[in-house]
């Protein structure tokens, strides 16, 4: 990791002088992590990079130990994890660390990414740095998904089924990709084996890309809360001990949160169904991914309608991939020349809404999409029946399936001519059915109302039971109010997610008047210091 400028490293001993001529690894470390100039105004949002490095190390080390005991076999995987938890010395600790560690990793990476978004860390000259970061994130998602399959619980199995199914929605190649990834027609032993292999491989790929990410960081230099470039030596402090100590302190606080989960809430972030061994014959009542993937799950399910020639399933898949893909081109979507949103009063508002939208997308992803959030009125139905009448019955036969409506109307007309007050036609086949009418008797009505469609149907059934045998049949008129469901909310949130990147950032960058940006990093720092002193 060669960095700009003159190296200040001077080998002191004979050995380090000898080494420096042959493998200048000490020089590189010194230049990258000791003397490396760091903007002096970095706040705590800049400490998450250090936490992420630690998370990667924790996941790899605990993962390597777990792999010594884990058995990637459909009959033994679940039991092998139980054995790790029960019999391996401190196995419970290592297993909890790995499972909770995944959540902590994502928590830190999301804060890190939002930090980059807010302070414009993706803008020139840091585009590649940002793109490498997005690549790391995409690899993390893949690794986490693969890892979640390994315990071979119900959610492991069905999560893998859902995700590989949605790949099958891709046109032309989808089905082949699906079979290729699964290693067969269904999720089975072949799938588990390859998922284990890839889950072991990808973290090392991540480590490689992290090295590139840090290299790119040290080439372009760190961004900072003002977004102003480093101009003089006054703007910076040496990385060690200044940034190092701050990172260590923040990481230690982060570890406390990590420990609270490991030791006191190890299962709080998981799903109870994953303690049920995988059963391909029994679909769980709800299939949800881990919390960190819920926003994308909500985007996937927001598309319950066809988009032109694209059917809803494919549209959802494309939107889900696009929601991550769009991050890669963000440096060219944001047209503003000002990096930090600190000086962009309008963009800042939209950014805060964007953060809330992402959180609510996550909430939607965990809900049943049909759940009703708001409705204009209760679900109501009116039942009408005739009590004490005489029932007449006749057969209905249509000339062809298409002519059914005609035959239906004709049969009713005949019954009404006979004096029937109410008629009902039941279709039994494509062209056959029976018509019934009630002659005489007294007309009765009843109204029911309920909170949901299912409850309404139950209420209707109950009302029918109460009316009992006295009524030969009922006319049921349902009045379903307009509703606002979780899916509707997801659609609005998804729309905002994409509008933020595709419209708001490009347009705002051209039209917004930023507030005054300081000339140097050091200036506002020393100015506030003087104000404080005065």
């Amino acid at each position, binding site marked *: 990791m060669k960095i700009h400028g003159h190296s200040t490293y001077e080998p002191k001993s004979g050995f380090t002088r000898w080494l420096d001529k042959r493998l200048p690894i000490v020089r590189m470390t010194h230049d990258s992590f000791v003397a490396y100039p760091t903007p*002096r*105004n*970095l706040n705590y949002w800049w400490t998450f990079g250090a936490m992420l490095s630690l998370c990667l190390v924790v996941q790899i080390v605990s993962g390597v130990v777990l792999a010594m005991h884990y058995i990637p076999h459909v009959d033994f995987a679940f*039991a092998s994890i*139980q*054995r790790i*938890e*029960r019999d391996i010395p401190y196995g*419970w*600790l290592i297993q*909890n660390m790995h499972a909770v560690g995944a959540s902590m990793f994502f928590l830190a990476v999301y804060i890190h990414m939002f930090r980059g978004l807010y302070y414009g860390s993706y803008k020139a000259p840091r585009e590649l740095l940002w793109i490498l970061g997005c690549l790391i994130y995409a690899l993390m998602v893949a690794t986490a998904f693969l890892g979640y399959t390994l315990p071979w619980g119900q959610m492991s199995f069905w999560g893998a089924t859902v995700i590989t199914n949605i790949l099958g929605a891709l046109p032309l190649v989808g089905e082949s990709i699906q079979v290729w990834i699964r290693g067969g027609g269904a999720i089975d032993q072949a799938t588990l084996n390859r998922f284990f292999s890839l889950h072991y491989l990808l973290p090392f790929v991540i480590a490689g890309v992290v090295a590139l990410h840090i290299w790119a960081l040290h080439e372009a230099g760190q961004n900072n809360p003002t977004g102003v470039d480093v101009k003089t030596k006054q703007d910076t*402090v040496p990385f060690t*001990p*200044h940034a190092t*100590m*701050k990172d*260590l*302190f923040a990481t*230690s*606080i982060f*570890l*406390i949160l990590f*420990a*609270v989960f*490991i*030791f*006191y809430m*190890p*299962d709080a972030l998981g799903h*109870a*169904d994953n*303690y*049920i*061994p995988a059963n391909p014959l029994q679909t769980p*009542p709800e299939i949800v991914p881990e919390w960190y993937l819920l926003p994308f799950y909500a985007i996937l399910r927001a598309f319950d309608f066809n988009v032109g020639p694209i059917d809803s399933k494919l549209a959802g898949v494309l939107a889900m991939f696009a929601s991550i893909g769009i991050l890669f081109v963000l440096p060219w979507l944001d047209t503003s020349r000002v990096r930090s949103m600190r000086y962009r009063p309008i963009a800042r*508002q939209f950014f*805060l*809404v964007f953060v*809330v939208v992402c959180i*609510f997308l996550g909430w939607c992803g965990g*809900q049943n999409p049909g*759940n*009703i*959030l*708001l409705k204009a009125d209760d679900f109501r139905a009116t039942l009408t029946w005739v009590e004490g009448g005489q029932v007449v019955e006749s057969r209905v036969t249509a000339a062809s399936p298409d002519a059914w409506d005609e035959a239906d109307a004709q049969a009713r007309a005949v019954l009404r001519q006979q004096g029937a007050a109410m008629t009902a036609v039941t279709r039994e086949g494509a062209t056959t059915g029976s018509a019934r009418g009630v002659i005489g008797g007294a007309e009765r009505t009843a109204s029911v109302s309920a*909170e*949901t469609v*299912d*409850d309404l149907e139950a209420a209707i059934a109950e009302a029918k039971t109460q009316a009992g045998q006295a009524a030969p049949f009922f006319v049921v008129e349902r009045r379903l109010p307009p509703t606002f469901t*979780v899916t509707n*909310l997801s659609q609005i949130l998804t729309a905002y997610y994409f509008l933020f990147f595709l419209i708001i950032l490009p347009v705002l960058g051209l039209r917004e008047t930023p507030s005054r940006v300081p000339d140097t990093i*050091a200036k506002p*720092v*020393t100015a506030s*210091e003087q104000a404080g002193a005065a």
Partner: protein
Amino acid sequence: MLRAFTAAAAVLIAAAGVAFAAGEAEHPQNYPFSFESPVGDYDMAAVQRGFQVYQQVCAACHGMDHLAYRHLGEEGGPFAAYMERDHETGQLRLREVPGPPEHGGHFVDVVDNLWVRAIAEGVTIVDTDPNSGQPVERPGRISDYFRNPFPNEVAARAANGGAYPPDLSVITLARHGGADYIRSLLIGYDGESQGVLHHNRYFPGGWIAMPPPLAEGAVSYEDGTPTTVTQYATDVATFLQWAADPHMEARKRTGIVVIAFLLALSILLYLAYKQVWRGESH
């Protein structure tokens, strides 16, 4: 703008809460189990009684495939044996009841644990005869895993009217509501039944294939604890919680030390950070 959005969100969440309230099984009763607090241990007497209820009632249909008899006598288990020093003679002697003494005490390896040995030997295990290779019945060993009442799922279903009694090894982790749910389920019957299904107000859907398993006085307790259905349910739920999470006590104890260490470290690092940045404007 942000405030308006937050207000709208709050309304949405409130509305959602109302919408979900309808049409679900009753929420499990919240019982104050000792293990629920961050520093709470297991009530080992309840775990022992719960194991007795499991052995005499539940084990007729439910397996616990991930537990071996030796687990009962390991540190943190309900039948862990300890030696303690006699105050008068100064000799080490075996404690008469399972569990560690207040102070000191030496853990007795499970191989030498007579309670666990007796429990294991009281069970008949089907094994392969080492001489003839034929199936043979023998008394259990501490290394045996809990005897499964059925050789396979088909046999289990055949004996239970098509329903499969789930394995109970991690049942409290595998159900929303955990031990509270298990306890509530066991006392949630109201005597109503429809064919092979029984009404239970805590079971999702309301109708469960398991007949009411517990009857008053069905298991006799040696320690004088009341032999009511509610007591059995509480004890079994406690035992199953231990079975699903046998290292909970060690985990919580370790957690206190780790977090205390991290807090102290954080304070030191904060002071060091302040020291380094003193005189640097930022």
